């Protein structure tokens, strides 16, 4: 079993995991923010005079989601540089 782990470490499975994790996080974040953008555009189309309010709410929600995505990216970076 230890030889298996040594072999996996040799071929860099940790780095592969970190890279895949960062990629999956990007998919999740873009899906989320895409949905926000889409519903914001529909809402502005329905009621153009509230465009300002909708725009600022959209930006806040996108920033919060990006925060979580960056959190995952930092974890992956830590795996690459400390593992």
């Amino acid at each position, binding site marked *: 079993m230890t030889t298996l782990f040594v072999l996996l470490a040799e071929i860099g499975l940790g780095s592969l995991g970190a890279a895949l994790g960062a990629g999956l996080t990007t998919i999740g974040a873009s899906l989320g923010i895409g949905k926000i953008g889409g519903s914001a555009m529909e809402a502005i189309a329905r009621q153009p005079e509230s465009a300002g309010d909708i725009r600022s709410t959209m930006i806040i929600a996108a920033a919060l989601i990006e*925060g979580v995505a960056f959190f995952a990216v930092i974890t992956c970076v830590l795996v690459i540089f400390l593992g």
Partner: protein
Amino acid sequence: MTFIHKVYIIALFLIVSCSFPFYSEGSDLVTEGEAVENEKSSFDAGKFVVEHVTDNHEWHIATFGHTHLTIPLPILLYSKNSGLHLFLSSKFHHGNGSYQGFSLGEGKYEGKIVEVSPTGEVVGTPFDFSITKTVAGIIFSSILILWVFLTVAGIATSNVQKAPSGLLGLVEPVILFIRDDIAKSAIGEKKYERFMPILLTLFFFILLNNLMGLIPLFPFGANVTGNISITMALALFTFITTTISGNKHYWKEIYNPEVPWWMKFPLPIMPLVEFFGLFTKPFVLMVRLFANMMAGHLIVTVFVSLIFIFSHLMGPAAGWMISPVSILFSVFIIILDILVSFIQAYVFTLLSALYFGMATKEHH
């Protein structure tokens, strides 16, 4: 804009962007003897990028060929063996040799200052209170903020009945925006005034340091908010303020929330989740600001270093061809980063205000 103006702009852009490959050295064969003099014979992209976005004990301004134009910053160390030491970082001569028993660490101690015995062995690490590049950046931005806001306060108090003029006209709409849209809506009409100083300080400190990190000229280029210690300190301010100003209702919500009894009694699930929530909220504030700023700087540095990588790999011609693309993309990322700076300062302040509001909310 007439046609000749457009030609001028494109020509200027091409000249500026194609001047970058002149600084790279091409791929030379390096013999043992030349390795000592020709220190830039191979381009280590990882090291170049990391050096440019992290903290440093000297302020590097430019490099012309082999001469580095840097400003040495003071190093202040306290060692348990030999007490207080204060000297300029130029005494370290970029890592060769030790001074007063200290030298720049290598390997395990990369990036830190270590204490060495006379034989050269590492004895320990002293407490490092040096004025590094980030600290010098903070000092400069604090001086700038103090100057701007003391001037503005003087204008405001001396012209009470008149319309704002000068610097006040720039700053007052922003302060009113923070007061109305962030503080009053998150904290409420009755209690928002207590928190206005810290909210304003957080917003303007983060905004100015974000923007200053994007300007490459001295004394502006220090990457202050892309340093996790700085954002940790800012998040700690928010955490301490919410903890100190939490009223009885706030603590009751955490330790005895109004949820079904089986979530609290045999295993205190909800109190535990709420307790961890106390710490994750400032933690996420810290990571969000740090990662956004660090990512912007990292991308710009990587795209500029792409020019040098291409030069070393495929000769200077490849470097010339990649330069316009690289510079265009870097400019685009910097413009995006200006937008991100404003958004991140606004989000940090808004979330801090929301946490203050939750801490002081009355039981309805």
